[in-house]
């Protein structure tokens, strides 16, 4: 399984519809400070079902919706989609391609889809449960967070050992 595409609209600094097409192997994202690189990582974490806004550097869920700039108005909602190649059926579904979409409104409502079927956040969590992309997994290492792998108390380091087991 691999990530084929990430579509971002209205998420943090990505006011305009943005599409990242990906291939297997190594893709590097580069650019100046504050341009939006880590926001892409946040978008990925969010669409995979992140529930704690603190893991997205926010203090309320609304913080991930484009807040406007000096020239542009804030938007009312944000939406992120990821499309995965599932030909190896690593995800326990029949589809060879899986698209997950999450949308959030400033009013607080949220919507979710798997392959254009409306679903609940819970369904997205369950879909990824056994793939190693579940919430304890070491699939997204945030900025400034690599050392945490050493400094967490011994008790905290059990995660991947049990989770995976």
């Amino acid at each position: 399984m691999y990530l084929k595409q990430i579509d971002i609209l209205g998420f943090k600094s990505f006011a305009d519809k943005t599409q990242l097409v990906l291939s297997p192997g190594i893709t590097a994202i580069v650019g100046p400070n504050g341009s939006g690189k880590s926001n892409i990582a946040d978008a990925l974490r969010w669409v995979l079902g992140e529930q704690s806004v603190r893991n997205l550097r926010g203090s309320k869920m609304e913080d991930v919706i484009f807040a406007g700039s000096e020239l542009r108005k804030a938007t009312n909602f944000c939406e992120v989609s990821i499309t995965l190649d599932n030909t190896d059926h690593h995800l326990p579904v029949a589809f060879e391609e899986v698209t997950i979409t999450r949308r959030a409104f400033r009013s607080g409502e949220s919507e979710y889809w798997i392959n254009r079927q409306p679903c609940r956040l819970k369904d997205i969590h369950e879909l990824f449960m056994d793939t190693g992309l579940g919430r304890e997994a070491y699939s997204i290492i945030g900025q400034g967070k690599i050392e945490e792998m050493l400094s967490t108390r011994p008790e905290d380091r059990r995660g991947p050992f049990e989770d995976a087991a």
Partner: protein
Amino acid sequence: MAARFMETFQQIRVEFGKAFHSLFQGGEADLVLTNPADPLTTGIEVVAKPPGKKLQNLNLLSGGERALTAMALLFAILRVRPVPFCVLDEVEAALDEANVARFAHELRVLAADTQFIVITHRRGTMEEADALYGVTMPERGVSSLVSVRLSDEMDYETA
């Protein structure tokens, strides 16, 4: 349950020692259970000795040595419990050029089985990438994405 934990632990421990030895070009590292008698509640300590140095508390290691040790642990976990894709956000910030090259080489080896998305300022990492995306803000406050090539990169991002 306890047996599976112990088995996974042993596998990661072996891979950690190998990854460390490879990234540091020598030295030893290990994982030690704080309470081996009770696999279900034990913690896990990291022990690391760079080549030629005495074994000391992890806190005495340098910033770069700690980052490299953490990477060895991450790589060990990825080998024993692979994930389909992994996002790394500037994890090599503390490394010098020589260590960035070793890190990037190790990524290349792992990339056979794992898709990596790496956010980076470091040329050594960019050189190992199959594709490069540039994020900029031509309109202030609004992010914009472009495909870039490494020679373009030299102009503004040589760190």
